[in-house]
């Protein structure tokens, strides 16, 4: 993974001192609340319902084992012994003290981490596929490109006070999109053109929130070396023309819609014509330098299967289930990628204790080249596990609460912190996730339902990505009471779509039985091999509506 050079280290060290000084001035009364606000937000620090919340950047989800251990130490020393992985591959601490945040940042800087631009109206953490580098069908490893974007966007002087937040995602897989690029402000799809040259299809104007929009193509093909200048052109057009009179209409999606994609594209291309081939154009040496940071581990020449593993699969249904749901095919024979589930019933989705962080660090060291990844689905991944190590890893995953065999199923719920923590939320989301997990506690039944993405957001800011859940649940406020609106048919993948609202909302107690009715309709209507999303697309939401509101 990317390793800091002296410049990278100097930059985060400078940032620690800068924020220490800003915090000191704020506490001394030399900086007003409103003035400190954007400064702390650009360092990931929110003031929440109970305490500040600090969002720490995990660039494109990559975590080294020593970073996981540092996060564990910070969670113990400065927080309440746990953290929460967000839907954009970051981690959040829910109980730090404002006065001690500079010290947390100093601790993070020791392991090449920071909280720069994890919030605020600036360019946020660049996200990508959690299986980057090990997927058989990816065009190239997207991580070097993510790092190029990270460096370019870090402290970009022109784009720190945009109309609204700005999120970029990169996907390089041909057949899947686990990075949800189409619902990002800019989505970069790495492709090859007919001549075999590497480049990008660039989308803009996607986003969730109160006005969900699927991004549109700005350019069908941008050459590899023009990555940064093309993004710069888009962001400059947005910075000048995005709305600033209404924060709910300030995202780039509103600009692209209002202008129309043709006119927006023309403006971007006109701006880019001035930038094309300037000194910000990537050099071959720079691309190679980045790629060298993500060079392939020393994979051994291993047999694709292992007799002991085959035997255990035959003997143990639990092991079979775990492999079926939590293992992902690796492009190198004899290796597999394993997802450590953070979706155990009774635990808030994406939450991880400091003990688990240390355990995951140890597992990463012993079984996966010392690295782990965070997915936007809020789970942890060990990407380079030897097949022959699977039985041992399974035992240790079970012992540490990581082995819930539910990845990609109904109970692998994406969920924001919701009303239990977040001051923006209209309703709680974590207890809803738990109720649904309890309702569907029969693993065989959940497996039979197959791939099904259920996403919960506690308000229309949509941090839980409810619009693109196959089943989406949105917390709403009805005269001071918490209610839940349900939508069907959302999908964050290559064929991205937004869910359609089923009808009037429900109270919290009703939600599990409503989900059950929806599932019943699917089971009745599905054809063989048809996944939930396919059935909803084929039959529409009417049959579901009829059953739920009967």
């Amino acid at each position: 993974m990317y390793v800091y050079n002296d410049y990278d280290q100097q930059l985060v060290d400078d940032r620690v001192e800068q924020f220490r000084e800003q915090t000191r001035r704020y506490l001394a009364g030399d900086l007003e609340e409103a003035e400190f606000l954007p400064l702390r937000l650009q360092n990931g620090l929110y003031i929440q319902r109970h305490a500040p919340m600090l969002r720490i950047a995990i660039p494109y989800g990559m975590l080294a084992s020593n970073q996981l251990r540092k996060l564990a130490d910070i969670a113990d020393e400065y927080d309440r012994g746990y953290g929460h992985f967000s839907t954009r591959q970051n981690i959040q601490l829910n109980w730090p003290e404002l006065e001690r945040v500079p010290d947390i940042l100093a601790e993070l800087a020791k392991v090449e981490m920071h909280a720069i631009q994890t919030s605020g109206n600036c360019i946020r953490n660049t996200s990508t596929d959690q299986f980057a580098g090990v997927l058989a069908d990816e065009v190239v490893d997207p991580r070097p490109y993510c790092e190029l974007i990270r460096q370019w966007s870090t402290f970009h002087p022109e784009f720190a006070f945009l109309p609204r937040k700005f999120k970029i995602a990169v996907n390089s897989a041909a057949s899947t999109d686990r990075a949800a690029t189409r619902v990002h402000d800019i989505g970069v799809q790495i492709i090859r053109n007919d001549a075999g040259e590497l480049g990008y299809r660039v989308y803009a104007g996607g986003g969730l929130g109160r006005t969900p929009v699927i991004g549109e193509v700005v350019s069908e093909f941008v050459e590899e070396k023009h990555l940064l200048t093309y993004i710069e052109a888009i962001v400059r057009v947005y910075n000048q023309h995005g709305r600033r009179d209404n924060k709910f209409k300030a995202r780039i999606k509103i600009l692209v819609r209002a202008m129309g994609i043709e006119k927006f594209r023309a403006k971007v291309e006109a701006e880019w014509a001035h930038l094309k081939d300037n000194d910000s154009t990537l050099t071959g040496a720079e691309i190679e330098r980045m790629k060298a940071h993500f060079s392939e581990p020393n994979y051994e020449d291993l047999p694709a299967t292992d007799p002991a593993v085959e035997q255990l699969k035959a003997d143990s249904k639990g092991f079979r289930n775990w492999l079926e749901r939590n293992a992902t095919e690796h492009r190198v024979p004899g290796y597999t990628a394993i997802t450590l589930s953070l979706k155990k019933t009774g635990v808030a989705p994406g939450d991880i204790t400091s003990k688990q962080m240390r355990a995951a660090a140890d597992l990463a060291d012993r079984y996966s080249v010392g690295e782990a990844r965070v997915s936007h689905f809020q789970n942890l991944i060990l990407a380079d596990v030897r097949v022959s190590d699977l039985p041992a890893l399974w035992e240790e995953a079970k012992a540490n609460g990581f082995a819930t065999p539910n990845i990609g199923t109904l109970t692998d719920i994406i969920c924001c912190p919701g009303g239990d923590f977040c001051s923006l939320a209209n309703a709680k989301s974590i207890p809803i996730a738990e109720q649904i997990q309890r309702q569907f506690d029969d693993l065989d039944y959940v497996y039979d339902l197959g791939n099904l993405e259920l996403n919960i957001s506690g308000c229309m800011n949509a941090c839980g990505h409810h619009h693109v859940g196959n089943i989406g649940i949105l917390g709403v406020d009805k005269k001071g009471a918490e209610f839940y609106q349900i939508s069907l048919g959302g999908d964050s993948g290559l064929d991205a779509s937004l869910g359609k609202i089923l009808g009037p909302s429900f109270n919290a107690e009703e939600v599990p039985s409503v989900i059950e009715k929806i599932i019943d309709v699917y089971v009745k209507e599905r054809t063989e091999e048809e996944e939930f999303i396919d059935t909803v697309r084929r039959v529409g939401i009417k049959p579901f509506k009829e059953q739920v509101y009967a």
Partner: protein
Amino acid sequence: MPELIVNREIATDTYRYLTEEDAVPATGDVIVPLVVWQAQADSLQARDGRTGVWLASDQLAEDLDERIHQADVVAIEFPKFVDGRGFSTAYLLRNRLNYQGELRAIGDILLDQLFYLQRVGFNAFLLPDGKPAAKGLELLEPISVRYQASTDTPCPLFRQLESA
């Protein structure tokens, strides 16, 4: 009195900031709104005293023409510090229109924004009342590393390292 920084030094503001309704005096340094500048370009050149242009935040670089080079100062207004349009306007003035004169940030700016303002091309800052210029000078350079190109750094860090 608002304090002023020009070229990294505390300076005295000699300019009067005129509105559209104000008559332009024959002498003395003035900064006039863009509409006045565009309507009276020639007579403004003839007056005795320096003349600058005042851009509101929704007046963009694309609204300007080559007459901007006659200005003694271009003042870009930040109505609220969160309104970052002026950062792009400054960048484009310097890099697209090749404006070489004084570029002054006015309005609601934070001392903690001076670093970014300087990077995109501002060399003068009229600080809001109560913001000490001495503190501003201390905060001009909080981060010593610049990854990306901007007006102050035409070459991104990776190219600088490659040619080093």
